[in-house]
């Protein structure tokens, strides 16, 4: 499951005409029932959940303010002693949630590096590229808003993760297709550049999967010298993405290694991690990990394909690599089949979801527990790369992706006797 994005949730969840105290009580009930019905343990966190209700409901009834009610609900969730159960104050949403933008994009990929929004990639042929935007440029302002006013308060709030913050900032560079967005950049010589950037259709093919909103999915494969390189934005559009992965691996027989770049990839269909690993893992009866639900335990098994790649595999990740990306990267790392490069992943490897509560607060909860093959849960912990290395503005301005460079260097060293 894709982690829900805060910016997708509108203010419609606010109920009109109800008093705040009742909304807080309704919110308490929704949180308590959700944990009761959806937690993977019948006794959530080993607790008598009914007794928890009896203990905390009177406290919410007595609460004198929304903040006090929130504090009680948060305290109740804290009793679980588990990650990814959190109440996000409604006020935080106003920081990251206003003005969703639209489907149109500029072609700019960005990350928050050292508290600054930095362009990390520009799509070939995109309006941004045509207007001269380059990797390494800092984005100062977008859609009439100083990005610093979004980034600074969010960074100081532990409830907002890198994934959410980056999406919130990226949303400032979106709008209606055919429209424009005003943005200000700091270029390589630290000169401020003001641009009106055109907005175009998102990259990739629109792909639907069940009740998920249709998503634009792209897949790219190329050679970096004698190393094959794969990048795709989501584990969706299964037939096309799996076929692209297979073809790249088959074409890689004479190459010296494979890089699978999952930076920015929020996940998608969990099974695709197993399917892709089958092209890389030759040993039978291996698994990437195990998912524990209330009634069922599912092993994420790997079926070795008839032809399996023997060359070294590097997997690139960052704080925006979530869910299926973490299952894939963590599993290959645990099986000693892939070396992971980049920064710590999003630690959102479970079917966790965000919902808005009747009082406007946000509620994040996990539905299952996933343990990677190495014995470590990915939820809340994520994947720590074998080689921790981050993009830097300086390197980007010099035309270098330091994470790819590190992976290529490692692959080349594998050839050295």
């Amino acid at each position, binding site marked *: 499951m894709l982690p829900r994005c805060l910016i997708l949730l509108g203010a419609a969840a606010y109920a009109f005409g109800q008093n705040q105290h009742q909304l807080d009580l309704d919110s308490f009930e929704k949180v308590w029932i959700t944990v009761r019905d959806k937690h993977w343990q019948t006794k959530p966190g080993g607790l008598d959940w009914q007794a928890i209700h009896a203990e905390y409901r009177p406290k919410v009834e007595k609460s004198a303010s929304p903040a006090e009610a929130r504090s009680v609900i948060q305290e109740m969730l804290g009793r679980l002693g588990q990650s990814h159960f959190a109440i996000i104050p409604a006020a935080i949403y106003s920081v990251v949630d206003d003005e969703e933008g639209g489907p149109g994009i500029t072609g700019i990929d960005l990350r928050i590096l050292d508290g600054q929004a930095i362009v990390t990639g520009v799509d070939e042929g995109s309006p941004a590229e045509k207007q001269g935007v380059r990797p390494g440029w800092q984005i100062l302002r977008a859609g009439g808003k100083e990005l610093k006013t979004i980034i600074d308060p969010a960074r100081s709030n532990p409830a907002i993760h890198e994934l959410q913050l980056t999406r919130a900032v990226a949303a400032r560079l979106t709008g209606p297709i055919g429209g424009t967005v005003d943005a200000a950049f700091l270029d390589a010589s630290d000169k401020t550049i003001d641009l009106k950037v055109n907005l175009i259709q998102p990259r990739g093919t629109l*792909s*639907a*999967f*069940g*009740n998920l909103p249709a998503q634009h999915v792209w897949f790219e494969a190329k050679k970096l010298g004698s190393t094959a390189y794969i990048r795709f934005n989501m584990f*969706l*559009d*299964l*037939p096309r993405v*799996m076929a692209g992965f297979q073809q790249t691996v088959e074409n890689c027989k004479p190459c010296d290694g494979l890089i699978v770049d999952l930076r920015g990839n929020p996940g998608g*269909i969990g*099974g*695709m991690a*197993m*399917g892709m690993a*089958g*092209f890389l893992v030759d040993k*039978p009866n291996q698994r990437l990990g195990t998912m524990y*639900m*209330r*009634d*069922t*335990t*599912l*092993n*994420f*098994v790997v*079926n070795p*394909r*008839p032809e399996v790649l023997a060359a070294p595999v590097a997997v690139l990740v960052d704080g925006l690599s979530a869910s299926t990306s973490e299952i894939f990267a963590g599993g290959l790392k645990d099986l000693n089949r892939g070396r992971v490069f980049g920064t710590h992943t999003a630690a959102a490897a479970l079917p966790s979801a965000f919902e808005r509560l009747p009082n406007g607060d946000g509620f994040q909860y996990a539905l299952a527990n996933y343990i990677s093959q190495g014995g470590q849960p990915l939820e809340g912990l994520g994947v720590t790369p074998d080689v921790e290395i981050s993009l830097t503005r300086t390197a980007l301005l010099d035309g270098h992706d330091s994470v790819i460079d590190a992976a290529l260097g490692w692959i080349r060293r594998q050839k050295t006797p």
Partner: protein
Amino acid sequence: MKRRVLNFALAALLSGIAGAFAADPLPSAESILDRYVQVTGGKQAYAKRKAEIAHSTVEFASLGIKGSMTRYAAEPDKYYTSMDIEGLGKVEMGINGPVAWENSALLGPRVKTGIERAEAIREGTMNSTANWRKLYPKVENQGIELVDGEECYKVVMTPAEGQPMVGYYQKKSGLQVKLTSVASTQMGEIPVELIASEYKDFGGILEPSKVTQKTGPQEFSITLDSVEVNPAIPPGRFDLPPDVRKLLEKAPTQ
């Protein structure tokens, strides 16, 4: 079960209303399964069926995913199913003699082994309803339970290899309306519950036109649209796919 029958008989004697209880002793599991064969068409109807092609639609309603399924079967041990599921691509499964295999766009080809293989072969057997004696050496009627408010006999069918299946047969109609089991899959043992309904005549045999299946946390429905009886099966339909053959060559002991 025997104690329960004995108690009924004793009560009947003591009360002097034997007639009221005489109709109630639990029938044997064998008679329930034979009755199911009878009410769905009879042995003759099954014996006439040498091959079939069944066309179904599949729906994962809560996920908003639909698909189609075509199942080919021929006596004695040939079976092939192809599912096309929106967004997930093709999933194929087959049995050819002792080889049970699967191939999907998601996970690729594989050869089933152990209990999973035994279960696949059993479930792929042509006319498995009529051939229950060959498939389940031990059957037992464990009493009466309500399914959707209807009294049903609960029959536990134990195969030579694998976990028992529990079938629920309506006392009134003799039709099977529910089946529970634990499936052995490569991802683990998963509880499965099937609810069968809307029996219809497909070429002389009554079959449930709707089956709702709960497999772990997932629920989906299969609607049987049509069955071609004794059709010409396309040549090579049951052949092992090239990728499955490659796997067998790679690890012939599978």
